[in-house]
């Protein structure tokens, strides 16, 4: 793993996260789900994959988006309410629409992976979800289908401790990664705040999938340092002591300490900071100059071509505006 690149991307993800929360407070975004604390899990997992491997994100995967090189203005437009699912190049970046109906998208990843296998392709799919989503029935169906068809898919569960206000112990009495055994697939638990461990775990799962040896369920243990979203007040359900304690295990600090121990000097960190801030500046400016699509566009992607009755409804909106 290119540790320096990993750090730069994790830092960019952190700065993007902070900026997005600020933008929401300023009224530029409608709402935003902060990802702070999960940078190692998201960045290192994507770094372990090829650019043609397909990513199925949940809604807190801007770390993965950063690592994949997704257009961040297009990504944030979803949180400005400009377009459902995001306004980036889904097909070009192999980065599926943002999924807030958590659990449902695990099956899409399995189907996509089955499809590539039918085509004898060697790409793999990775799907991001939290421990809360594993309570959905679709998650179990996805593990099962993937096992039966040996689908080249990596189930990447970020167990960040909290599903909004409900702690992980209320989602399941067991350990999520152990479910893999019951579905006849490989499972692993990894320290999600250790970028290198995440990278190695995902790289191993990817090569297993490419070999045709089927899916892997990875449970990456991490922690959501921020609230569930900008509309959430996490002081109502968890103590500030708990958060402070977990902040000591900040993955960005850990990555920096690793690099420093390896002799990387201060100028690298300064340059990384500058680079991240410049990128964020461009994203902010890009959002400012990007106007929302016209409202009538809501009619344009319902069907390949609008049926007559829908075309008439579109015309009604046009006449009023």
């Amino acid at each position: 793993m290119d540790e320096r690149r990993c750090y730069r991307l994790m830092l960019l993800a952190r700065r993007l996260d902070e900026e997005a929360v600020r933008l929401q407070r300023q009224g530029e975004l409608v709402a935003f789900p902060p990802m702070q604390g999960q940078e190692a899990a998201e960045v290192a997992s994507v770094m372990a994959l090829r650019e043609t491997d397909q990513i199925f994100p949940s809604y807190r995967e801007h770390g993965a988006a950063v690592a994949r090189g997704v257009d961040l203005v297009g990504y944030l437009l979803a949180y400005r309410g400009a377009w459902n699912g995001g306004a980036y190049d889904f097909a070009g970046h192999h980065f599926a629409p943002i999924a807030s109906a958590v659990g449902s998208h695990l099956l899409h990843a399995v189907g996509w992976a089955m499809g590539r296998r039918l085509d004898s392709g060697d790409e793999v799919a990775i799907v991001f979800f939290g421990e809360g989503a594993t309570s959905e029935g679709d998650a179990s169906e996805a593990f099962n289908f993937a096992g039966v068809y040996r689908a080249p898919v990596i189930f990447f569960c970020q167990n960040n401790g909290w599903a909004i206000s409900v702690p992980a112990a209320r989602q399941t009495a067991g350990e999520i990664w152990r479910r893999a055994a019951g579905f006849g697939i490989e499972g692993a638990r990894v320290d999600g705040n250790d970028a290198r461990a995440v990278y190695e775990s995902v790289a191993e799962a990817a090569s297993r999938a490419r070999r045709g040896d089927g899916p892997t369920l990875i449970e990456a243990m991490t922690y959501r340092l921020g609230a569930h979203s900008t509309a959430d007040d996490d002081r109502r359900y968890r103590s500030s002591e708990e958060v402070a304690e977990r902040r000591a295990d900040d993955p960005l600090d850990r990555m920096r300490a690793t690099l420093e121990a390896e002799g990387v000097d201060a100028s690298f960190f300064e340059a990384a900071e500058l680079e991240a801030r410049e990128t964020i500046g461009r994203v902010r400016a890009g959002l400012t100059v990007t106007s929302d699509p016209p409202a009538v566009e809501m009619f344009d992607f319902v069907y390949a071509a609008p049926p007559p009755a829908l075309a008439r409804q579109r015309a009604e909106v046009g006449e009023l505006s």
Partner: protein
Amino acid sequence: MVQALNAALRQCLRDDPRTLVFGEDVGRLGGVFRVTDGLQDEFGARVFDTPLAESGIVGIAIGLAMAGWRPVPEIQFDGFSFPALDQVLTNLAKYRGRSRGAYDMAVTLRVPSFGGISGPEHHSESPETLYAHTAGLKVVSPSGPQEAFHLLVQAVEEPDPVIFLEPKSRYWAREEVSMTPSPLPVGKARIVRSGDDATLVAWGAMVRRCLEVAAAAEEDGVSLEVLDLRWLVPMDDETLVESVSRTGRAVVVHEAPRTGGMGAEVSARLMELAFRKLRAPVQRVTGWDVPYPAASAEHEYIPSLDRILLAVQRVLDE
């Protein structure tokens, strides 16, 4: 009709190597109604059995469509389509929009539907309204073998998700089927019997019943037109309005419960588009607002000849 559907699937699998057929028991068994009989032998891995999980079946269809395949999944019975409803409503119907047009959802979901076969509980549901009320889906139901062939081929070729509701009570209907392309475009209704005094509007198995009603009415000197709507989405307003404007009277017949059913939609469209031509209020003859009853009572649930004739009488009396 089972053979006609089988022939349609066979043609789709032959003509487009991206076509996939899958579902519970569709492989070796050939489906519980034998609609997929022999397809796995001919097309191998493109026809496969799935685990018993309907949400999973539709969920993987979405992913397969994203990967450029053309899935034609089967849900074994209408009553078991509901576990898949979340995937259909939340994702299948919306994925084109969620991805801003990046992905076609060329998925045809076949669902054996409606009653009339003395099925056990959960084997006789009429789910069309749930789908018709969901933007992004197309909804169609064939009334007989020839229609089944034409409409299924057409549905599979569509770039949009199509909910294909097969009337189980018509599975064993027989007629000669021409394996030609459909003469009618997607979204077009069909007048299956011309008449002057009133229009009966139906789809699926109720088309056949309405034809029986029209034959009975003719003996009393009443001339009924029968309109097979075929596509509930998109609905053919033009043919509907033309027919009812001519006859001045309409009775809508469906198996689904009355409240909020598609009969209300047909009736509302006639109010909006043909009010001044109507000589009587539109009548609905439907299933009752009850859960589908046990087999011994289903004849009292499904619109009968007598109930439809009474409704015809009511519109003629106005």
